[in-house]
């Protein structure tokens, strides 16, 4: 038996993939901190809301319900295309994913524009940040959510532009996935805030 026959074939190196991707862990940590922020804001809103026998207080305008319901449907509908985009990237169809992401971004912008228009109307009716506790709580809570939607829309825009350049592949789409998770979080948060502020 020669030395040549004793030489064992080289095994391919074992790829050390962590059971949980670091990006997912980071996103869980981020969303946990965001949830704590919103829990504190909801606690503040509950104190103001429950201490008043009548809501909204006398002399303050009512919140527009119908437009906000339509706006909520726009936001919830935007979850479908972002899910489709994720599926398309996994199946290796990046062009379809880019189109779905563009639709999600458009729906997000629509949500922001409608909400901005409603806020302008409310300000004209006398509901401002300093007009009462009602106005302060409303603008703080809903404004904080709107700031998150704006951040998510900017992120979606970046992800969409990268998708049109062919940046995302079936084996490398962590940035797109994180953006989708953040968008789910923003939509799920609205599912809590809308009944609390507009219906309760």
């Amino acid at each position: 038996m020669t030395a040549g026959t004793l030489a064992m074939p080289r095994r391919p190196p074992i790829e050390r993939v962590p059971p949980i991707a670091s990006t997912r862990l980071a996103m869980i940590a981020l969303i946990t901190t965001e949830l704590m922020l919103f829990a504190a804001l909801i606690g503040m809103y509950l104190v103001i809301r429950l201490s008043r026998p009548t809501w909204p207080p006398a002399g303050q305008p009512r919140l527009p319900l119908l437009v906000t319901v339509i706006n909520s449907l726009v936001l919830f509908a935007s979850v479908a295309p972002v899910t489709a985009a994720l599926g398309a990237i996994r199946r290796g169809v990046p062009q379809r994913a880019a189109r779905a992401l563009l639709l999600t971004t458009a729906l997000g912008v629509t949500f922001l524009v409608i909400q901005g228009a409603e806020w302008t109307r409310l300000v004209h009716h006398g509901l401002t940040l300093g007009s009462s506790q009602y106005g302060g709580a409303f603008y703080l809570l809903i404004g904080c959510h709107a700031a998150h939607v704006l951040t998510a829309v900017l992120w979606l825009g970046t992800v969409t532009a990268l998708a049109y350049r062919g940046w995302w592949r079936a084996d490398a789409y962590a940035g797109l996935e994180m953006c989708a998770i953040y968008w789910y979080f923003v939509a799920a948060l609205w599912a809590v805030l809308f009944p609390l502020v507009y219906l309760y």
Partner: protein
Amino acid sequence: MTTRLRWSIPLLLSALLVRASAALAQGCAMCGNSFEPNDPTTRAFNSSVLFLMLAPYAIFFTAVACVVLLYRRGMAGRRGIIVPLHRRRASLPVDGPKEVTP
């Protein structure tokens, strides 16, 4: 630690909690004295305090559950990897190591 001692400590703590007076539960003197017992503001503060007590635990355990679920899914995916043994056997040299039977 004997069994009797091990059981007596939780029982003692439970009895203390049951017999605790309302004065002990009054955290802040200002909050306790500023509002009437049936004041709407008092009730609002109480509800908000309950919510803010529950929220961190709910959020923390949800996050932990997410991490555990992702970890278990990741480990299951790792165990499910099919190692192509036939390729490795084919690449072995003809006079390679043979199985030793006892």
